[in-house]
């Protein structure tokens, strides 16, 4: 199963460094694993841990959080806040019975297209090894996602 | 196609596989060697208190590693002259672990049987032999074996010193042995096995 398993991963990027790193990887035609789908935030500090839980509960097998290197945040120091939340989030995931390794924080400057590409591929392989996310009973314990997915009803 | 003569190899036209030499040395070194970071500034060669006796300065050795000059590097007396004073290590602007790289080169040279003058390897091996037998150093045993073989002419000059050391009780005539020699031997046996398999 895990042999053919293609994980789906949501990646959060900041507008100033890591999104531009992804742009650079593209401009330089660097190839990397196609499993990561990116969301642009203005800053990694915008990352609400709920987003990560929402992604994992909506079908993502892993979440990649990227931001500017410490000391290089375009909003001075907000990436440190992202780091703190990330560490906390890992503890929460552990509590929910989810492998904390499914979430990874990566620093990438706007100049580090190559790093972005190689880290992405490496993370996909790590998640591939972990296998598909198996929520078991954990999904029921999720207090943070109170709002049901509404748009399904619209379509129904 | 011209032939790859020894001269050509020495002139820098390397066989491809030798380009892995730097990486090999780096991987065999304890800690993180940072060898690939060398900028050839010469701080090491300038700092070395024994540079005058070396055939290559450490800096040159690192350039030769990059060029894949395996034989020349392992034949060099430089690692054996290194006195482990760590001047170069703390001054190196690129934080290369120079002294530890020297230890690696020594062990590689011993294994490749390339270093010409056997004095230094013999001393190290005799010393280690004592430690592996007794668990502690034994200066008199070491000195007598080593000097008789390599420095017989030095002995007359050293006699007063040796006599002084013995009469002042600074050189015990018998070795001391640790209690749990079997335990130490078991550890070293396993360690040697790990060294070969890694």
């Amino acid at each position, binding site marked *: 199963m895990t042999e053919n398993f293609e994980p789906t991963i949501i990646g959060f990027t900041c507008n100033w460094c890591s*999104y531009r790193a992804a*742009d650079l990887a*593209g*401009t330089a*035609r*660097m190839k*990397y694993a*196609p499993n990561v*789908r*990116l*969301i642009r*935030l*203005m*800053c990694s*500090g*915008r990352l*609400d*841990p709920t*987003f990560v839980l*929402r*992604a994992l509960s*909506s*079908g*993502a097998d892993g979440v990649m959080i990227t931001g500017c*290197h410490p*000391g*290089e*945040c*375009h*909003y*001075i*120091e*907000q990436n440190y*806040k992202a780091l703190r939340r990330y560490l906390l989030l890992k503890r929460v995931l552990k509590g929910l019975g989810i492998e904390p390794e499914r979430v990874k924080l990566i620093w990438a400057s706007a100049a580090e297209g190559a790093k972005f*590409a190689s880290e992405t591929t490496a993370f996909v392989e790590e998640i591939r090894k972990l296998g598909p996310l198996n929520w078991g009973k954990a999904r029921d314990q999720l207090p943070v996602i109170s709002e049901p*997915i*509404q*748009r*399904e*009803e*619209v*379509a129904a | 196609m011209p032939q790859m003569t020894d001269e050509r190899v020495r002139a820098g036209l390397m066989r491809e596989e030798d380009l892995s030499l730097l990486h090999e040395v780096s991987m065999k070194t304890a800690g993180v060697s940072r060898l690939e970071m060398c900028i*050839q*500034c*010469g*701080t090491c*060669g*300038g*700092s*070395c208190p024994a*540079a*005058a006796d070396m055939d*290559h*300065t450490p*800096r*040159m050795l690192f350039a030769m590693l990059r060029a894949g000059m395996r034989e020349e590097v392992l034949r060099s007396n430089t690692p054996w002259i290194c006195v482990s004073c760590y001047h*170069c290590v703390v*001054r190196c*602007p690129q*934080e290369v672990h120079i002294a530890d790289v020297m230890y690696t080169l020594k062990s590689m040279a011993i294994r490749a049987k390339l270093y010409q003058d056997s004095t230094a390897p013999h001393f190290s091996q005799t010393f280690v032999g004592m430690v592996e037998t007794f668990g502690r150093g034994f200066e008199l045993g070491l000195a007598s074996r080593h000097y008789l073989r390599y420095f017989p002419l030095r002995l007359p000059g050293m006699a007063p010193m040796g006599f002084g050391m013995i009469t002042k009780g600074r050189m015990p005539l018998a070795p001391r042995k640790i209690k749990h020699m079997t335990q130490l031997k078991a550890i070293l046996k396993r360690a040697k096995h790990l060294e070969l398999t890694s």
Partner: protein
Amino acid sequence: MSEKKLERVGVYVCHCGTNIAGTVDVVSLAKWAEEKLKHLGVVVAREYKFMCSSLGQELIEKDIKELGLTRVVVAACSPHLHEKTFRTAAKNAGLNPYLVELASIREQVSWVHTDKAVATEKAKAVVAGAVSRVIENKALEEIKVPINPNTLIVGGGIAGIQAALEIANAGFHVYLVEREPSIGGHMAQFDKTFPTLDCAACILTPRMVEAGTHPNITLLTWSEVVNVSGYVGSFHVTVKKKARFVNEELCTGCAICQEKCPKKVIDDVFEAGLGYRKAIYTPFAQAVPKFPVLDKENCTYFIKGTCKACEKFCPTQAIDFNQQDQYVDLDVGNIILATGYDLFDARRVSNYGYGRLPNVFTNLEFERLSNAAGPTSGNIVLRDGKTTPKSVGIIHCVGSRDKNFNNYCSVICCMQGLKFAHLVHERTGATVYNFYIDMRTAYKAYDEFYQRVLEEGTLFVRGKVAEVTDAARYEHEKGKLIIQVEDTLIGKQRRIPVDMVILSSGLQPRHDAKAVGKQFGISCSTDGWFTEKHPKLDPVATMTEGIYIAGCAQGPKDIPSSVAQGAAASARVLDKILQKEVALEPIKASIDHDKCSGCRICNGLCPFNAIAFIEDDQVSDINPALCQGCGTCVAACPAGAISGTGFSDEQIMAQIDGLLFRNLLPVEA
């Protein structure tokens, strides 16, 4: 069940020639979007060769008008490239520009993947994410704020002076704040400037005088900025004018007080510790302004209660022992930080012996030593004050390019080292050695100067000096400083005895750069220099609107580059002033006061001090002009009371779902 009216969404897939179409099946992608995303409100999906072309844009504009689109998704390149293009197109067609989203299927899909099927599948996800998100987008309006035409410049070195003169000459007012008693900065301390060897004072003094007398420039020397608030267009700044104990109205700058003051003090600042000044002093003869400063810590009157020699001899009764620090409030529209650099403390490289071996000098000491106005009147002598050296060693890269100290190249040291070699050679005829790792003489006329110094007979040794010692090994080394180095070009260690050693200490960020950055709301790089908005294309702007940087505060640089940056920063400021008002991106956070519990968690999170607590209402509030839109407070609010326009929870949640196709098909309960 839900009666929510569907938005009318148009999806436009760009081929970008073969850039996208070569890897993504654009035709089936558009078809898929039209069919499978219909339930989200997609009413039309088209593909076209070049969407950014005028024909492509017209296609979108036409659909907006004719099909009554309320949202647009363009699947093309990175938003950093063409977001503005398509937003403008929407605006032209009467749609609010913020109701357009770009789906990056070039940089993030076609250029980085090879398998067409896989790439097309990922492109679908990216489009689905963008469609889901755009539905949640809100119409936004740009915020416009007026620009106060006054400018604050912090730092009166050559970069700050240049910027001040450019703006003042254009007819606008400048406040130039300087920490030291006089403007001039490091350049005023130098003797000659490379590569042309003009005398620093000769070219700097006229600029200083011009700045000092310009009707549009208010000089605030012996002053420091203590508080900054506000935002681009209207900053409020408080400047502390330290007490000079000299009444500037009365003082004529005759310098009699300095002459009569009995207290001699080692001048650690201007004379780099190599000379003396009085307790009441101007740092140098051409100081601007001409008024002296009384140094309270060293003044005999302040220490012992008697003396007052300066007061007695002052012909205009300008000495005022009761003067207090003053606080001046300024309103300005833009700010330029030109705060300069500190010299690396050469004592830290203990193997070079500075502070231990008397005849080891720093570069700044040598500048004073060779300066005709310096403590030795320009005589290059040893620390005994009289002996001319017969041999001099100049060591490059002291504290620079060294992971034990500063990792970066200090840029100026090679040329400075060459300049010193020339001066020593010219004035003493001594043998000069330059010890270098790499000779970096880029830029106009620099390498020619290197050639000239070579021609003069300076001896170059390629090798980073290992140590400078007074421990002689041989007779000829006795009484000398021995420079021990590997001459890497011959592969041998050399010991070179010299009389004098000059250390080219590197440049490093001001010791308080981080605090100053925080005060003005800008960041520092890992090395500690102020961070520019873009390293290549926007080197003098910062991430904070209205704050600019110039000179060495941004990174090591020489005089020409500092001057260029000063001028560049002033051009950016003038551009802002002439626009009279500035439009701010409407990506901001705002607080729903009904939901805010007043916990104040967000208050400390904002690096731009945009969040304030309103005591009367017991809620927090965000100043939209200060908010830069990072969204950290949005993520942190435990009550969910803060929302971020452009990046709201709803938008991001919807995009997550879209990317995962979660909202693609109805799921049976």
